[in-house]
Every structure is written in structure tokens, then in C-alpha cells.
């Protein structure tokens, strides 16, 4: 006891205490973290658990519009047969759950409960109702494996009439619109093609093969990350912003220059 009391004032004592405290904290954390990890793993192990968890999530966040058994209602479609790809697309892009009914569901930051696990569980539940398109594998949507030139041709033939020539988006009828593709992940682009969300038509694998879809993803992601060689891109929407710039920058500067040049006037004697 006296030895400890005496040792308290030792120059190395504070380091010893610090080391002890850190070790204790780390130990407790490892213990706690590993137990939660084991709990997650046990849920992931069984598909049945995913479906059950997904159903719970569905009833919390989706059932108010899509019906208690996803049978649909007068404000929302049935989800039987829409597939895991549709769930992944809608939920990961924040479109679902909907904040309020409007012409079209906008992309927004997903609610806090949305993460990979919950999306997988929801997808499993919806898939269990009647199959449908599945989420593509990572290498199916890898832009590095696609041919952007071929993809560009397909993109121009199939997408730009709504999404604009670089995927900057465009207006459709009555408040609907084709969203811009600047934030869409390769997986989301693929899923949008196979599920046809909202106003978009479905481009199934017999119309555009999975390889062609990958080419298109390569083109879309390549063009959107391209640095504009001609200077400021002006939103990449074509002549509207160019005309605006010509008037607001070009002509305004020249009018100001004219005012400056003629500021000093000759007076008649």
C-alpha cells in the first residue's frame, strides 16, 4: 500500500495510467463491437431473416401508400413483381420513401435508416412477393469494362431525347421530368434501364443487352467527368445558356465599354 502511494508520484506513473486506460477502453470496444458484428452476421446468414426484417421495414416506411402487403393503392402501384432492382434504385437514390405526392419523385438524401443492410432486407421482402429484375453484379456495371464509343451511339439513340445529350436532364409533360444523370451511380443507371422508374420506359435485356448497358454506363460516366475543353461548360444544356451569356456578359461588357469611352463629352462653346 505504501509502495503504491509512494509510486504515485513516480515520473512514469501518469504514462502507466494512460496506457492502462487506453487498454481498458480498447478492450471493452473490441468486446462490444464483436458482439454486435456477430449479431449482424447471424441475421445476414439467413434469407428468411432478411425477408422478415424487410417486411418489418416495409410496414414501417412503405405500407402507408403501397398497402400492407404491397398490393398497391389508389396513390401507389403494387410492388408484386417489381424486383429487387427497383427497390434498390428507388430507395438508394432517396426517391422512396416519398416525402409528399407530386408529379414525380425527386432524388434526395435517403432517410437515416437507409443503408446497405436495410435496402437488402427490403429488396429481399419485395423479391419474395413475385420475383422481378435483380440488382446487377459489380462487374456488370463497371465503366472500365465498357466501350464508351459504342455506348455513346446507344445513348444518343435511346436516352438523350429526354435526358439531354450529356444527361443534364430535361422537361417532360405536366411537371414530370427526366432527371440529370450527374449523381446516378453505375448501378442505379443499370437498374433504371431494367426497371423503367416513373416516366421512363423499360430497356430490357432483349432490347439492349447487358454488355450494351455497360457500354452506355461507360459513356455516361465518362462524359460527365470530362473536363470541358472549351472553358466553362455553361450547364451543358446548349444554346439557351450560350445566348444568355452572349447578352449578359458579352453585350453588357460592350455597353459598359461604350459608356466608358464616351464618358467625356465635348461641349459646344
Amino acid at each position, binding site marked *: 500500500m505504501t509502495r503504491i502511494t509512494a509510486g504515485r508520484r513516480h515520473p512514469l506513473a501518469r504514462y502507466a495510467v494512460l496506457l492502462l486506460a487506453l487498454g481498458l477502453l480498447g478492450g471493452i470496444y473490441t468486446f462490444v463491437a464483436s458482439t454486435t458484428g456477430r449479431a449482424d452476421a447471424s441475421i445476414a446468414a439467413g434469407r428468411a431473416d432478411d425477408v422478415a426484417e424487410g417486411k418489418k421495414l416495409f410496414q414501417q416506411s412503405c405500407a402507408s401508400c403501397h398497402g400492407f402487403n404491397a398490393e398497391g393503392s389508389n396513390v401507389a402501384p403494387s410492388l408484386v413483381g417489381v424486383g429487387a432492382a427497383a427497390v434498390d434504385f428507388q430507395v438508394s437514390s432517396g426517391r422512396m420513401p416519398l416525402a409528399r405526392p407530386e408529379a414525380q419523385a425527386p432524388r434526395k438524401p435517403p432517410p437515416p435508416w437507409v443503408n446497405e443492410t436495410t435496402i437488402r432486407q427490403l429488396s429481399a421482402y419485395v423479391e419474395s412477393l413475385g420475383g422481378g429484375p435483380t440488382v446487377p453484379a459489380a462487374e456488370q456495371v463497371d465503366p472500365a469494362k465498357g466501350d464508351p464509343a459504342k455506348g455513346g451511339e446507344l445513348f444518343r439513340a435511346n436516352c*438523350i431525347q429526354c435526358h439531354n*445529350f450529356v444527361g443534364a436532364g430535361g*422537361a417532360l*409533360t*405536366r411537371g414530370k421530368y427526366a432527371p440529370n444523370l450527374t449523381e446516378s451511380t453505375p448501378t442505379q443507371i443499370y437498374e433504371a434501364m431494367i426497371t423503367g422508374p416513373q416516366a421512363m420506359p423499360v430497356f430490357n435485356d432483349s432490347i439492349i443487352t447487358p454488355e450494351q448497358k455497360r457500354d452506355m454506363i461507360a459513356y455516361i460516366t465518362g462524359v460527365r467527368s470530362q473536363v470541358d475543353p472549351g*472553358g466553362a461548360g455553361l450547364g451543358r444544356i446548349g444554346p439557351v445558356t450560350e445566348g444568355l451569356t*452572349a447578352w449578359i456578359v*458579352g453585350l453588357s461588357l460592350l455597353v459598359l465599354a*461604350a459608356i466608358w469611352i464616351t464618358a467625356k463629352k*465635348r461641349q459646344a462653346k
Partner: protein
Amino acid sequence: MSITTVPKPIAGTSSFLDDRLGAGNFLKRNLRKIFPDHWSFLLGEIALYSFIVLLLTGTFLTFFFKPSMGEVPYEGSYEPLKGIMMSEAYASSLHISFDVRGGLLMRQMHHWAALLFVGGMMVHALRVFFTGAYRKPRELNWLIGVLLLTLALFEGLTGYSLPDDLLSGAGLRITEGVAISLPLVGTWITFFLFGGEYPGEDVISRFYSLHILLIPGILLALITAHMILMWVQKHTQMPGKGRTNENVVGAPFYPAFMVKAGAYFMFTFGVIALLGAFAQINPIWLFGPYTPADISAGSQPDFYMGFLEGSLRLMPPWEINIAGFTLPMSVLIPALVPMGIIMTGLALYPFIEQWVTGDRSEHHIADRPRNNPHRTSIGMAAVTFYGVLWLLGANDELASFFHISLNATTYVGRVMVFLGPAIAYYVTYRVCLGLQRSDAAVIGHGVESGVIKRLPNGEYIEVHVPPNPAIEAHVRGKAPVPMLPGADGDGGGERDGVPPKQLRGPLGRLRVKMSRAYGGEKIPLDDGHGHGEEHAAIGSGEDRSLTH
């Protein structure tokens, strides 16, 4: 050697030239030509200098452009189009953009200069219109200007089509649609223009000849005529001190005006270079090659064609079918009517105004827009008509940017294209009269001095001072809008006796009525009412506050 002696090489050369060209006399007469000074008088020069930039950059582009619609695979350095089949025109435009040194800068400067060329013409035309500078003796120069503007639109259209990218193809398709919708001759004209079924293989090379040879040639000739006429007729001047209908007050061409014009050329060139270097325009590599099957969202023409695009988008789908022939009103009306209203209206306005006012005298003093309120209101109504159509040409971008329904923009546009000009007319008219009243107040009452004065009876007044003489002269430059003789009386021509022959009949009576509405003095500058207590003047050496 004294300073006044001209060095021999200069003296020798100049006498050589003078003896053969008579240049000395010409220069002596013209170098001291006086140009009046006002910022708005420089606006036309934007178009002039942009045209010079267009000629220079355009010449550079012709060195590398191949006006052919033959299909070739792309072999250039832009990766996302490698191996794609495209026309030689498009491939060579890509070549200019990516593989010719300075090519992209030249292309972008050419395009920006084109936008400023037409934009400069528009603001110049508006200045001439609103100041009445088109009046006798300048009507012919005004007509040349209208012709220049029309030709510039066609020059722009042909140039826009040349790179043969997807966007330019959309414009070409509309051109074809308009041509083919013409009654009786439509199909003939279309097959003639495109050398067969659309798109054919001829249109690019034909547009190329028009774009680099025929239309610029006519433009150059007309611009020269425009300049010569302006030089001979002298420039109008704003009303002001010492300025009359018989003189021109300003700076001589050499040296003052030449320096200003030179500086303004540099400014124009600088702004175009600035835009060409820092703002991307017409990124054809993003549009892709033209195929008639593809179309992009947000396909728009360049801004000067926007009003035609807008009228096409506003038009309801009307169609007349007679004996197996279709008359597509939904294309004919938007393509021809707004263009007809605006261009014909511009061309005829000086003559209609003369007919209404009966004014045959020469005018060298410009009107301030407020002093001819009906003309200004008609101009603003036309600007609004054009503006609504122009705005609606971009209705899909407006809908997607401001998150409004595309259909709503169309419905609102259909109403506003008629209602807007009427509102603009009324508002402008009231604003003009209000400004005239404020002028009358300046002349009649002076300007507020900010000095508060207490009178012996305890009343506070703000002291007004006479305006600056330059401002007063500017304001007093106002003249009543001319009116037909006989139209100014209360009962028109009839009261003073028998009206002249041309004012009888329904048309004549209408003319008298219009003249009475259009002409005359709406708000006299000196309205004759005396100076009240609050109109005291200080600073002029006379305190009139107690004399009334």
C-alpha cells in the same frame, strides 16, 4: 532641319499618292468630319467589329473544314467518338476542335462573334428606333439595316448547320419542315434545297457556299453602303446645348473619334476573345454526329432564332385538309407570321409614321424616347411580343430549371403573346408621360436643392434651384410630335373648313384620328402655371420666394 519641315520620304510618298489618287483632298475633307458623342451611338459598332472578327476567324476555319456529307469513321483524338461513322463535315469540325492548334479557340470565337454580331445589330436597331433616327433623310439606311438583320439570321442559320452535329441537324430538320409545309411549292423547294429526300448529301456543301460566299458578300456590300450613307448623311445627335438641326456637335474623326472607334474595336475583339477562351460554346463533340433518327432534349437554336422556335412551340396543332392536300397551319403560321410581323413592321415603320404625322421634314436631332410616347410604346409592345416568343423558345429549359410544368409555360405563353404587348404598350405610355411630367417639373420648378427654409410665417419649404444649363438644354430639345395639318383642332380638319382631299373618306378620317392620337404635345414643358411659394430659387442671384 526645323520641326515644320516634312521629312523627304514622307513628303515624297504622300505627293506621289496625292498626284495619282487625289487622296489629300479626300482626307482633308473627311478627316475633320464631326461625330456626335453618345454611348448609344457606339452600339452599331459592336456588329461592325464582330463582323470583322467573323471574317478573320471564318477564314481560318475554311482552311480545315470539309463541306462534305460523305460518311467516314472518326479517327481523331476525341476518345468517346472513336470509330463512329460520321459525315466528313462533322469529322473535320472535330478535327478543328481537337487536332488543329488554336482551332477550338477560333471556332468558339467565331460562334461568340456571331452571337454578338446579331445582338449588336438588335441593340443598334432598338436605339435607332427609339430615338427616331430612322426619320427622313435616313429611311433608306434603315431599310438597309433591316435587310442586314434578316440576312444575318440566314447567315447564322446556314453556319449553325455546317458542323453537321446532332443539334445542327435538328435545326436543319425544322428548316426542311418549314420549306415542305409551303403550299403548292413546298415539296419542290425542299427537293431543290436538299437535292432529293431529306437529308440527302448536298445540303452541307450548298449551305457552305451560301455561308462563306454569297451571304457574307451581300452583307459586306450592304454594310459598306450603310457606312457610306451614314457618313454622307452625318450622324444624328442628342438634343443639347448648341445643337440644332443644322449643325453637328462632337469630336472630329481624326484624331478623337478614330481613337474611340479603335479602342472600341479592341474592346469588342477583347470581349469575343475572352468569351472564346473561357466560355464553351457549341460543344459539338458532346452532341454527336447527326442521324435523322436521333434528337436531344433541350434542342434549341442560337438565340436569334429563338423567337421562331418559341412561336413553333406555342402554336396549337391546326391543320387544314382540302381535297387531299394538307395545309399545316401549325408550321406555316409560326414560321412566317412572327417573322413577317417583326421584319415587315420594322421596314415599314418610318413610312407609316410619315403617313400618320404628315411629317416630310428632315430630322438630325434624335428624339428622347419619352418625347414620342406612342412610338416608344409601339416599340416596347414589339419587344414584348418578340421577348415572349423568345422566352418560350426555351420553355423546356425554363420548366426543368424552375420546376414548373411544361404545359403551364405553353398555356401562359399563348395568352401572354397577345396580352403582354398590350400591357407593355399601356405601361410604357404611362411611363413616358410620367417622365415628360418630371421634365416639365424640372423646367418649371427647378430641381430639389435639399435646403429647407423657414418662412417668416413659420412655414417650411424646400428650396428648388434651376437645373444645370446642359441638362436644361437637353430637356428643352423636345419638340411636339408632328401632326397632319388640320388634325390638331378639336374637331379635326372639318372645323376649319373642308378637309383636304386625301383626308376625306374612311381611310382619310382614320388617318386624321391616328394623327391626332399619335402627334401633338401631351405634356407641355412650360405649362404656364406660376411659381408657387415652394418653387423658390436660390443660386441664380434672385430669390423669387417672396415675389409671388
